[in-house]
């Protein structure tokens, strides 16, 4: 079999059959220049991929509204609020998570389009801090064992992030949102959000399934273990210092 650039390229891209792969490996063993050429193809591939990272983009807010509304424009004021949300979620540290940012962006914007009115319910300010007073109170004071409040808000896991911030996962059944928030500047910053549907007709509890995007955010941030009930109570009592 001729080992030309096409073959080496297909080898690097995993497009050869097992037999063809073996033939190329044998040829490379005999001729190191072939391996060097294959490495060049591999390097070009990863360089190309790294030069165009996946990232969320504020302009996709209007596109999402278009898709969700099947042609109807977003309500007045909603577009501005979506841009604010979006700007918060596309902060550099979120964009660095690649796939996670994709899930957050898709979920966050869908919730923004379909959620409650501008004045109430789940909202973020421009810096990504949670602006929903009811949820802030829950994050400050509620324990996982307390279950959900009357609006279906509950906390789940509590832990320290690798940068030292306190973080808590939460659900808000009435708003249809679940997420991860970390304590910053005396407030709580949303690190991940995802759509959340509490099972209809059942008593809402905190044991409803946490969306994968939120769990991924927990994994990305956590340093050590989640807190047990006693440690959680201490943190609440100490006002998250």
């Amino acid at each position, binding site marked *: 079999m001729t080992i030309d650039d*096409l073959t080496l390229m297909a080898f690097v891209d995993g497009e050869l059959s097992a037999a063809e792969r073996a033939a190329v490996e044998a040829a490379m063993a005999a001729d190191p220049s072939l391996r060097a050429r294959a490495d060049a193809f591999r390097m070009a591939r990863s360089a*190309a*991929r790294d*030069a165009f990272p*996946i*990232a969320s983009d504020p302009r996709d807010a209007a*596109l999402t509204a278009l898709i969700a509304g099947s042609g109807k424009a977003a309500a007045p004021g909603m577009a501005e609020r979506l841009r604010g949300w979006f700007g918060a979620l596309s902060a550099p540290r979120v964009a660095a998570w690649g*796939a996670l940012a994709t899930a957050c962006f898709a979920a966050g914007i869908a919730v923004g389009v379909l959620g409650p009115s501008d004045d109430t319910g789940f909202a973020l300010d421009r810096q990504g801090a949670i602006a929903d007073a009811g949820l802030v109170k829950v994050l400050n004071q509620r324990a996982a064992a307390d279950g959900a409040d009357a609006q279906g808000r509950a906390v789940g896991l509590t832990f320290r992030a690798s940068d030292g911030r306190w973080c808590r996962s939460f659900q808000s059944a009435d708003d249809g949102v679940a997420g991860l928030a970390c304590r910053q500047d005396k407030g709580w910053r949303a690190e991940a959000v995802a759509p959340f549907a509490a099972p209809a007709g059942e008593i809402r509890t905190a044991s409803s399934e946490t969306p994968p995007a939120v769990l991924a955010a927990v994994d990305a941030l956590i340093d050590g273990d989640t807190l047990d009930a006693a440690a959680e109570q201490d943190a609440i009592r100490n006002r998250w210092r």
Partner: protein
Amino acid sequence: MDETFGARRFIPHDRGSPLDEFQTGLVELLPRLRRLARAITRSDADAQDLVQETVERCLAKRGGWQAGTRLDSWAFTIMKRIHIDQGRARARWSKVVSPEDERTPQQADAAMADEDLRADALAVRGAIQALPEDQRMAVALVLIDGLSYAEAAVVMGVPAGTLTSRLVRGRQTLIQTLADAGVTA
């Protein structure tokens, strides 16, 4: 693909019906559509226009997508067709001989600068954007989005052999350009 989380997600709504599979899929596809548009156009503004038009066309031609088939290949094919049509229109009006001719690489536009890319990555972007149209599309689909040869050939509407020859030529140029610029992996 590393950007999917689960087969289907219910997006809650306090009035009316949830988003269906097509809508959810298309929303989730937006970052990849945007990335492909960035790779095959020459400016952020062009990329934005291309994404916008692609989404509108996808919504308009929704009946042409069969549930259970690949939404990404379908949407990318639409983007490719729009891009080729736009290229032809530009060629007619600006008297550029053919989109296939080498163009001088344009300067990295301002929008790229605030994406926190290393200088190397900017050089790579320039190299890819300097490739002829067909090679650039092949590189974008296989190297950047990660489609297989077979999947990329479907999007480009060509036999696999044509796809691989465009890909290898684009990549050979890329290797040379990067070596000349002293870029290491």
